[in-house]
């Protein structure tokens, strides 16, 4: 049976204060595993990720997700979650940060799921008791990642996940993201210009420049 693409973009335009920042005539992202968006700063990667995670609407054009045009972005957001380049932690404990999305979905077994997500990002279960202001930068990033992994969404979008991160943490992030894909079919879509790190995650690349897709390599 033909598997629909993960995303199909047709004549998409996104704008910021009436200035186009993303223009995609036609792009199909197949549902075949991790994909990376590569490009310099200002190439439109972050805007594209926000579009694909249904956080930003397009000014014009059509966006299809798994073969359908989503009726409500609120519902579509339950299937695609974004880790921002500079993640924001909610002003509460690590446990509550990670459990937040599960509570929003009305899910149970919070304790189990939170511990699992912590362990995937190399943090012990004890970490759950810490408060947001007690974390280092690297720990905060891992907690933010855990809060997305725990949701087991269909797509996990990551914006520069290794920015200001040391090698050890970068490797942990790569392993966690691939682990989620293998376990739950959570496809990672990654915006980065860290090509060395990317080699450990995926060879499938979409190159972007000045808000447009320049080249597809897969």
């Amino acid at each position, binding site marked *: 049976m033909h598997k629909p693409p993960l995303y199909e973009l047709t004549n998409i335009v996104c704008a910021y204060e009436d200035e186009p920042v993303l223009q995609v005539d036609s792009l199909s992202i197949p549902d075949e595993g991790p994909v990376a968006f590569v490009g310099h700063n200002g190439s439109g990667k972050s805007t594209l990720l926000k579009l694909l995670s249904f956080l930003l609407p397009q000014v014009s054009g059509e966006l299809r997700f798994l073969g359908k045009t989503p009726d409500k972005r609120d519902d579509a957001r*339950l299937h695609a979650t974004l880790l*921002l380049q500079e993640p924001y932690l909610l002003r509460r404990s690590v446990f509550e940060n990670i459990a*937040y999305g599960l509570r929003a979905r009305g899910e149970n077994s919070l304790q189990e799921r939170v511990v699992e997500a912590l362990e995937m990002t190399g943090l012990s279960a004890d970490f759950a008791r810490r408060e947001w202001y007690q974390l280092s930068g690297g720990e905060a990033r891992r907690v933010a990642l855990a809060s997305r992994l725990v*949701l087991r969404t269909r797509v996990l979008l990551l914006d520069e996940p290794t920015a200001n991160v040391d090698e050890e943490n970068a490797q942990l992030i790569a392993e966690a993201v691939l682990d989620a894909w293998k376990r739950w079919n959570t496809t990672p879509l990654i915006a980065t210009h860290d090509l060395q790190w990317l080699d450990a995650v995926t060879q499938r690349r979409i190159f972007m420049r000045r808000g447009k897709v320049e080249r597809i390599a897969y």
Partner: protein
Amino acid sequence: MERGDKAAASTDLLRARGGDATKGCILLNYLSEGFLQGFALIFSGNEEVWSAVAVTLKLSGLSMLVTLLFGVPAGFALGYFTFPGKGFLRLLVDTLLSIPTVVVGLFVYAFISNRGPLGQFELLFTIPGMAIGQTILALPIVVALTASAVESADSRLRFTLLTLGARGRRLLFSTLWEGRHQILLAAVTAYGRVTAEVGVSMMLGGNIKWHTRTVTTAITLETGKGEFSTGIALGVLLLCLSFVLNWAVSFLRRRGAA
């Protein structure tokens, strides 16, 4: 100047200085007696003093409950959404921050007096009637500061909540929760305004003993009667309340900045 005149001038000077010193002593005695008697009234459980405190707490509690019920959601809406006329509305709210208490008292009096449109509810010279006036004083503070808290929230907060699946009421309450220290600060600031005001309480309450006499109206009355010690007692209690409020403000500011 002859020697005799010099001596007389020195004596006059000494008498004048001595008179100033005597006046100073009398003043100090007056103040210290007032303070001592004031503290005695407080710790002896003087009924008039503590009745004024009880009325103040009931009144401020009622007005703050209504203020927060309407003010926090209104402040959220003003800070979160973009709509036509938002700038004007914000200017209006900010202007109302410094509205004189007697002006509020005057307008509310016109409404709730016997000849006013709400006269049939007999709210004049009652705590609920006074609470209407105090709510009007406190509301702009809570709305303006809550709106500021929402506007100054980290720009990543909204995206984070949305991408984690929040929507509707959860989005509203989560956004407010993230700014909880600033919103509490708004509440404490508003509370300080209503407990310290005189104009509204006097005009709408009538300063009726045991019923609508608050700490501030009681101070005004007692000092006018020359009952300095009672005024001192009430003033000390009000200062204690102000101290606690300011400590709370300082604490919340530090937590909010963390």
